[in-house]
């Protein structure tokens, strides 16, 4: 899927597969990772990413449509992760496949610049680990689906540090 807002890890090899197509010789991918910046509350160990759904998905789709039109490609990815990400984890992957490299570079740059200003996604610094959720019984409890992408913003999360 070319537009994705997910709490699952993002992978560039999956993005490459999404960008396959006849004649698409040049693929440019950009991946943004959580940096260990120093914030007001100390050294950042994690970022909480949240989105206002369904506006965020609608905005991603609008960017996709414009990129296809401007750069004459029908293979674009705009993937953003939500939830709590540790330093080094991939928060965003954008990419474009075009017949030639110049268009692929321009398209990928366009995608990330637009995404940053036009999509209701936010990051909040977590300078210390927040308390872990209590482990739940059963092997299927490892993933907390939907965290960070709820229509309602997560309430009552206190800023660490």
């Amino acid at each position, binding site marked *: 899927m070319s537009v994705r807002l997910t709490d699952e890890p993002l992978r560039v090899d999956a993005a490459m597969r999404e960008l396959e197509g006849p004649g698409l010789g040049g693929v440019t991918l950009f991946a943004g990772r959580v940096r260990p910046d120093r914030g007001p509350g100390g050294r950042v160990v994690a970022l909480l990413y949240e989105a206002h759904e*369904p506006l965020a998905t609608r905005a991603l789709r609008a960017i996709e449509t414009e990129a296809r039109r401007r750069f004459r490609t029908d293979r674009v990815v705009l993937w953003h992760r939500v939830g709590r990400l540790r330093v080094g984890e991939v928060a965003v992957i954008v990419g474009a496949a075009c017949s030639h490299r110049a268009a692929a570079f321009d398209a990928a740059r366009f995608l990330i610049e637009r995404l*940053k*200003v036009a999509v209701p996604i936010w990051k909040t610094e977590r300078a210390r680990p927040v308390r872990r959720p209590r482990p739940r019984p059963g092997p299927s409890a490892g993933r907390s689906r939907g965290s960070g992408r709820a229509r309602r*913003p997560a309430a009552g999360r206190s800023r660490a540090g």
Partner: protein
Amino acid sequence: MNRPTGSVTVLLFASAREAVGRGELAWPIPPGGLTAAALVAAIGAKFPRLRPTLATCRFVRNGGYLDDLETRLRPGDEFAVHPPYGGG
């Protein structure tokens, strides 16, 4: 004092949520009605830490960006406060 005539749901994201301490408020509509501008002023008055953030925010009613803050809100409306976006 008259009874409120329904309420709007205020969604607060990121720095706005952290300034208020929660992400959702049920805000009563007074009998004379409530414009978006009046709502923004009222939540800023109730949560002083939110004021600097509010100056940088965009507002969204029922999924559409609000250009005209004189728009009157209706019972059941969802009114979202969007601080500057920070994806990526």
